[in-house]
């Protein structure tokens, strides 16, 4: 649940980037940080494990300023993708208000995407939340690799595998080059704030 403080007129929303390990969640946040940190004046916290994999989570907080008299604070989180860190994933999902599911477009990652989405469903149900009631955006990442002749899942397949029931907004993206990274983030922030507006007014 978003943290809304009627006294200070502050709203804190928690948005989690979820998805299989190595899919590009951290790269999304890094891009946002590198590109916009001047404007959003924030620090990013990255805690890494062996090599360059996220251990606990990455955390990028920023403020979008006052809307209808409320100061809106956004917190972006990523979760570690590897199976063995499921406890951390559960933890990070606690109190989540919106989710970006970052799918890996590589053909060889098809199964991993599907399993990770199932894992998201399961972990949300632990908090008695239903994935279809949640502001959610899908991102099909690493589309840039097509240019290098690396086999990618066709969009249709990704939509079929991941979005045939959910029917949520989806973006092709390249977190590495930044294509559609801000778009994805803007969409989820918008959907999340919209879903909170009932509580705001």
């Amino acid at each position: 649940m978003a943290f809304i403080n009627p006294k200070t007129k502050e709203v804190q929303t928690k948005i989690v980037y979820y998805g299989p390990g190595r899919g590009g969640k951290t790269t999304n946040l890094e891009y946002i940080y590198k590109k916009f940190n001047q404007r959003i004046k924030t620090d990013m916290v990255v805690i890494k494990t062996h090599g360059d994999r996220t251990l606990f989570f990455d955390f990028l907080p920023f403020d979008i300023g006052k809307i209808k008299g409320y100061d809106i604070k956004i917190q972006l989180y990523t979760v570690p993708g590897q199976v063995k860190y499921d406890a951390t994933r559960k933890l990070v999902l606690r109190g989540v208000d919106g989710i970006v599911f970052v799918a890996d477009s590589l053909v060889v990652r098809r199964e991993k995407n599907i399993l990770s989405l199932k894992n998201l469903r399961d972990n949300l149900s632990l908090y008695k939340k239903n994935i279809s009631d949640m502001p959610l955006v899908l991102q099909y990442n690493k589309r840039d690799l097509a240019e290098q002749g690396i086999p990618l899942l066709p969009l249709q397949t990704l939509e079929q595998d991941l979005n045939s029931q959910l029917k949520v907004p989806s973006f092709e993206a390249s977190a590495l080059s930044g294509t559609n990274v801000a778009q994805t983030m803007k969409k989820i922030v918008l959907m999340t704030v919209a879903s909170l507006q009932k509580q705001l007014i």
Partner: protein
Amino acid sequence: MVEEKNGSITIEVEQRLDELFGDSDNSSFDHSSHHPEFEDCSEALPFRELKSAVLSIDWEITDDAINRFIKQLNEIKSGYSKNKIIINMIQILNSLAVYLKINKGRAHPNTMKVLKSVFSGLEKVALSKKLSESEKKKTLFVEVEKFKELKQQIIALKADKAKKTEAKPTEETKSKVKETQETHSDSTIHMISEKAYRSALEDIKKFIKVEFDKLRKELNMHSS
């Protein structure tokens, strides 16, 4: 999913987001190359192949991926047999590949970083038309230093392992702790000041402890 019936707040948020995050990225994919000046020449082709092999190794260290990488290195090598700088860089990449092939996931965690860096250096030296001879030498020098440093780290890691084979902390927890301490030197962490980093780390430690306690309770509730 999200009803847009009260449009006003949505419009306001949208405007604000546009102000903050602009339309600085777009949805086409024809400009994603990092080195546009390298494009359009046939010399670039073998390097693109090599890059794709680097990426495969980065995702998963398999024999297949490494063999493809080594094969491609040899191909490039034959085209540059008189260019000492390039031959040197290829040799470094070859050593790194062989080391990875033997050690796979147990390889020193910095190996991939160095490999990617040497590859970028090689790409630059071979394909950038603007680079002078002395700049090329300097690039080689920088990469050689990184390689040497990694060799020292590998030796230290081995010595460490040998010393503590029957020691208390497992290899994994040890390397985790080390990584967390080392994050300063990491490019991402360079972005934030040391003080901010420390206090954030403290916050997160506290947060994790509290949240884990809550989670544990909650899980107990669910299982009972």
